[in-house]
C-alpha cells in the first residue's frame, strides 16, 4: 500500500526537533510582539479615523484602504527590500545591528494587522450608545478622556471576538516571514524536510503546532472575557 516509510522520530527528538523548537520560539516571539504593537497602532488609527479634524480622518482612511487592500507578502517584501531607502538612518542602523529580517517582519505584520484591528475597534465604538459619551462629557471629561476611561474600555470588550480572529490571522500570517529568511516555524519545517526528505512528518508537526497555538490564544482571550469582563454583562 504505502511505499513511504513514516519516521516520526525525526520530529520528536534530536537535532531536527531542536530546529522545530527554535522555529516555534521565533514564531511566538514574532506573533506576540506584532500582536501588542498592532493592537496599540490599531487603537490610534481607529481614534484618528473618528477624529473631528478632517485631514487626520482622511489620513487614517487612506491608511486603512491602502494596507487592507495590498497583499501581505508584497508588504513584507516592501519593508525588507524597499524600506531602507525611505526609513531614517537611525532606524536602519538599529535594524541592521539587531535582526533586520525579524524587524521587517514585525513592521509588516504590525501595520497590516493594525488596519483590520482599527476597523474592528471603530465598529465597537460605534456600538456604544451615545448617551455614554454624554454622561462622561457632562461629568467634565474632555473628548479624549471620555474615550480613554469610558468608551474604549467598553468598545474593546465588545471587540474581543473579532480581535481573537485578527490575532489568529496574525499568528498564521507570521509564516510568510520565512520568505525573507526569518527562521520561524515554517522555515524550520522546510529545513527539516530539505535535510531529511521527511516532508510529511515535518509539516504535520508544524501544522499541529499552529493548531495548538491558535487554541491557546483563543483560550487566553476567552478566559479574559469571562473572568475580567463578565460582571458588566451579568443578567
Amino acid at each position, binding site marked *: 500500500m504505502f511505499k513511504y516509510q513514516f519516521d516520526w522520530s525525526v520530529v520528536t527528538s534530536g537535532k531536527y526537533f531542536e530546529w522545530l523548537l527554535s522555529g516555534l520560539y521565533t514564531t511566538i516571539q514574532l506573533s506576540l510582539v506584532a500582536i501588542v504593537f498592532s493592537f496599540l497602532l490599531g487603537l490610534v488609527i481607529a481614534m484618528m479615523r473618528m477624529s473631528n479634524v478632517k485631514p487626520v480622518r482622511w489620513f487614517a482612511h487612506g491608511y486603512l484602504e491602502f494596507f487592507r487592500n495590498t497583499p501581505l507578502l508584497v508588504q513584507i517584501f516592501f519593508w525588507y527590500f524597499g524600506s531602507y531607502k525611505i526609513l531614517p538612518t537611525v532606524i536602519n542602523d538599529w535594524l541592521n545591528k539587531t535582526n533586520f529580517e525579524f524587524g521587517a517582519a514585525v513592521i509588516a505584520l504590525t501595520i497590516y494587522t493594525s488596519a483590520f484591528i482599527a476597523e474592528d475597534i471603530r465598529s465597537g465604538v460605534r456600538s456604544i450608545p451615545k*448617551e*455614554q459619551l*454624554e*454622561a*462622561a*462629557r*457632562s*461629568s*467634565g*471629561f*474632555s473628548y479624549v*478622556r471620555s474615550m480613554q*476611561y*469610558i468608551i474604549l*474600555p*467598553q468598545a474593546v*470588550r465588545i471587540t474581543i471576538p473579532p480581535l481573537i480572529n485578527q490575532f489568529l490571522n496574525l499568528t498564521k500570517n507570521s509564516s510568510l516571514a520565512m520568505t525573507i529568511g526569518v527562521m520561524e516555524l515554517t522555515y524550520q519545517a522546510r529545513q527539516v524536510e530539505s535535510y531529511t526528505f521527511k516532508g510529511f512528518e515535518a509539516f504535520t508537526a508544524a501544522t499541529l503546532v499552529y493548531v495548538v497555538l491558535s487554541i491557546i490564544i483563543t483560550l487566553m482571550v476567552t478566559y479574559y472575557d469571562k473572568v475580567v*469582563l463578565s*460582571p*458588566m*454583562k*451579568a*443578567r
Partner: protein
Amino acid sequence: MITFKGVHKWFKDLHVLNDINLHVNQGEVLVVCGPSGSGKSTLIRTINKLEPINEGTLIVDGMDLSDSKADINKLRAEIGFVFQQFNLYPHLSVMRNITLAPIKIRKIGKSEAEGQATALLERVGLAEKRDAYPTQLSGGQQQRVAIARALAMKPRIMLFDEPTSALDPEMIGEVLLVMKDLAQSGMTMIVVTHEMGFASEVSDRVVFMDEGRILEEAAPDEFFKNPKHERAQQFLKEVLSPMH
C-alpha cells in the same frame, strides 16, 4: 446663578427653543413641565452645553456659554446631570462609577474619594451595593447611584432630565425621596418632570413650556390652583387625571 436672555435654538427647521427668558437663583428648586416635544429637555441640556444655543445669551455660574473661549469642561464639572436612562458606566462597579470623575478630574486621592462615595451611597440608601455592577441593580437603584455619581463632584447646580420617567411605578418614590432630601439641603436644582406631587411639595417655582416657549411661570400653589394659560390648564387636567 443661571440666566437665559432671548435664547433661541433650532433643530434644522424646528424651532425647539423660542425666545427663552428665565432666571434661576442660587438654592432655588425649579420644575419644568410641559407636553412631550415642548423643548423642556433641550432647555436643561443647554445649561451644560450638551446642546449649544443658536441665539441669545446664556450665563451659568458666571460663565457666558456663547463665549467660545469658555472652559466648558470646567463648567460641566460644577454641574451634576441626571439622565432619564441613568447612563451609568456598565463596565465599572458602583463604587468606580462614583469615584471616577472625582479622582480623574478633581484629582483627589482614591481613599478619600471612596470615603466620600461611601457616605453618598449611605445617603441614597445603597451602601451595600458598592461592589455591584449597574446591570445587577433595579432601575430605581441605578438612578440613585446616578444621583450619587453626580453629587460626588460636589456640584453647584443639579439638573434632572425626567429622572423617573423610565422607572417602574413602585420605584419612583425612592428616587423622588432622594431628590427631596437634596432640595432641602439647599442645592440649586432644575428638574424636568411630570411628577406633579414633587413639583407642588418641593419646588419653589414651576415653569410650563409648550412648542419651545415658556407659557407660564409661577409658584407651585398658584400654578396648580389657578393656571392662567389654556394649554397649561389642559396639560394639568391630563397629567392629574389621565382617565377623565
